[in-house]
């Protein structure tokens, strides 16, 4: 019977279960079938998997339930604001010309010539040329 098979499987994994009545009758008849290495994995793996499964399932159920209960959106009372009508300010295409004329400097000389010494010599040069 499959119930006996399951009980035998669990008893093999957890010999502590032999204390219980349900497992007492099959304890003597139990023939170990599991590989010791696999047994060790299953012994600790099944509880870990169960815990993980239960937690995940719980979260999924909780998430689904919370999505069913939507809270109401809270909005501030509307204020009657007056939006000014958008009016495009016209700018003449000749404004840059006006600006260029206004900023044009009439100072002379412009650019100022470099200030240099034209009397480079070891002797005194006292002629009367310009500069």
């Amino acid at each position, binding site marked *: 019977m499959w119930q006996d098979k399951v009980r035998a499987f669990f008893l093999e994994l957890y010999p502590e279960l032999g204390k219980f009545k349900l497992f007492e009758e099959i304890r003597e008849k139990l023939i170990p079938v599991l590989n010791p290495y696999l047994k060790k994995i299953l012994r600790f793996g099944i509880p870990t998997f169960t815990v993980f499964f239960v937690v995940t399932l719980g979260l999924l159920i909780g998430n689904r339930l919370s999505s069913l209960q939507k809270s109401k959106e809270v909005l501030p009372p509307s204020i009657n604001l007056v939006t000014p009508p958008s009016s495009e300010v016209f700018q003449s295409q000749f404004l840059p010309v*006006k600006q*260029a004329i206004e900023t044009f400097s009439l100072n002379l000389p412009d650019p100022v010539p470099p200030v240099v010494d034209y009397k*480079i010599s070891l002797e005194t040069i006292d002629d009367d040329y310009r500069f």
Partner: protein
Amino acid sequence: MRKLLLGLFFFIFAGGFLPIFAQNTQYSDYQFQQDQYRKSYATYQLFLKDYLSDPSLNNEQKAIQAAKEVIKFRESTLSHYFWWQAEILKLTQTDLSLIHQTISQLDSLGQYHYSKSLESSLLATKTDLTKFTKDNRKRVVELDLMAVKAQVAMKLARLIQFQTDLKRGYDYLNRSLPNQTNLVIKNGLEQVSTNAATANDLIEKLTTQVKDLDLSEKRESQFYEKSIEIMTQIKSLQSRSIDIIIELDTNYVAR
């Protein structure tokens, strides 16, 4: 191995010259040369002072070397200054004989000073140096005349550009406001036209003044003052015209 050595030699050789040609516009070249001039002039003054206090052969040689260096950078500074001016004038693209003439004069001024900067390397003695400076100063009046003319020509080119812009504005208004009976528009357009004619006359007057300039009779400051006077009148007319054009464009052209 030989190729490697040649390559290395070229690299070192080029490395010495590259910084001088690192600048790529006339203005940055001018700034660079001016900076070099200032540095070399400070050195020259130190060596000259040493020479004047102790005129030994060693001090004389040091002072001559420093003087050669200053002359080289002075002439180079001036050549790049004039080439920079020529570049500015070329950019205005003004089709006026005076402007074309000024550009070619500025180019030759730059060329003259550049050749002088090369010539400075041949100076070896104190006498060479004095002769070079005296000969150079004999040409100063002639060179100065060209430089002064170029100054006014540059301003003139810009004013002519404004005239072209105003003409564009006037033509645009005539196209946009045809057969006008409105007195404001008619009057405005007439004023622009009259101002343009007066400005053109003044431009012509200034052009003649620049062409006929003789610095042996007149000081450059006087010439500048007279030129500024005429240019102020032109600018004032142009300011009035552009205000009218903008007013008509803003208030009367249908959109």
